């Protein structure tokens, strides 16, 4: 049994089905969809609050998504810990700056990779809040609830992602 937890990877069907159970538990125990992007705006709001409480009070968005430590904020520290435990158990944990697939095409310069990762992260954060959720909130929890908006949003995540990936690796790096 324990050996199973030390395996490097599980079948994506097994991991996926287990995540499906986890989504059911989120609704049952927390009355919430399992989402990840609201944690980042909460973190952002708490950072802003520590600099100037006034500016957070003035911003309308922080009345809808309250910057506080709560269920949806704790998801992100949890994910970091959970992935760390999984990677440690299988001996996969190692520190690196540049993923090899990126490095093989664009080189192993960490500053260049961080620049583009930062640009990607900014668009990801902007887009996630613009659309009201991310791959987990819309893609998994929303689609499972048969939300029309969530299914359309998830299709757009992949449409935009596929087009951009083909430009990056097919045209620029190809």
């Amino acid at each position, binding site marked *: 049994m324990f050996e199973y937890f030390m395996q490097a990877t599980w079948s994506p069907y097994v991991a996926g089905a287990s995540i499906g159970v986890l989504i059911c538990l989120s609704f049952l125990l927390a009355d919430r969809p399992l989402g990840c992007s609201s944690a980042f705006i909460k973190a*952002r709001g708490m950072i802003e609050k520590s600099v100037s409480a006034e500016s957070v009070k003035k911003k309308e968005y922080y009345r809808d998504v309250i910057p506080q430590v709560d269920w*949806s904020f704790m998801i992100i520290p949890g994910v970091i*810990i959970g992935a760390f435990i999984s990677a440690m158990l299988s001996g996969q944990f190692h520190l690196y700056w540049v993923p090899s697939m990126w490095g093989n095409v664009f080189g192993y310069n960490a500053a260049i990779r961080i620049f583009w990762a930062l640009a990607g992260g900014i668009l990801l954060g*902007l887009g996630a809040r613009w659309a009201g959720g991310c791959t987990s909130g819309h893609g998994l929890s929303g689609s499972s609830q048969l939300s*029309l908006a969530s299914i359309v949003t998830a299709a757009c995540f992949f449409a935009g*992602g*596929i087009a951009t990936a083909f430009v990056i690796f097919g045209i620029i790096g190809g």
Partner: protein
Amino acid sequence: MPMLTPLHQKKSAQIVLGLLTGIAFGFLLQKGGVTEYSVIVNQLLLVDFTVMKLMLSAVMVAMLGLHIMKYYGYVQLHPAEGTIGANVIGGLIFGVGFALLGYCPGTVAGAVGTGALDALFGGMAGLVIGTGIFADLYPRLKTGILKKGPFPSVTVQEFLHLPVGIVIVFMEVAMIAFLVLLQYLGH
């Protein structure tokens, strides 16, 4: 009324539950292979379908589980309403970031847990900046583009005027057919 409402209102219990849910989620994302940059980018390049397989398996289980629990009154669902201006435009902006970074908001945190420093100093830092930009723009977007082109219905069953049970059976069969087709095509 869902049965566990008192638990939903206990703030400290919810903080612990959120952490435990996150730990399980991160563990499963890593075991599923999707905290790996190359797995996500190769999905977007349509080379490796691990992400699709994992997501569809999750949706197949959750769609059935959530609607059964809802039927018996254990949970409430919260399907999101949407508009073209919010969901399509936001989704496409997200998609560009998804490919540039090579992670999404959940898997980026998972990648940090496996030691990816670009995910930490690039991805997570960018997400904090990007969500902040949205908070700044929100008052202007809220009355403008986010309202443009509301979807005709909230749920698929309302849209199709079909009983929810039939829609679920159809969706489950369609997802299984897609996964079988992927196998058949050698993915």
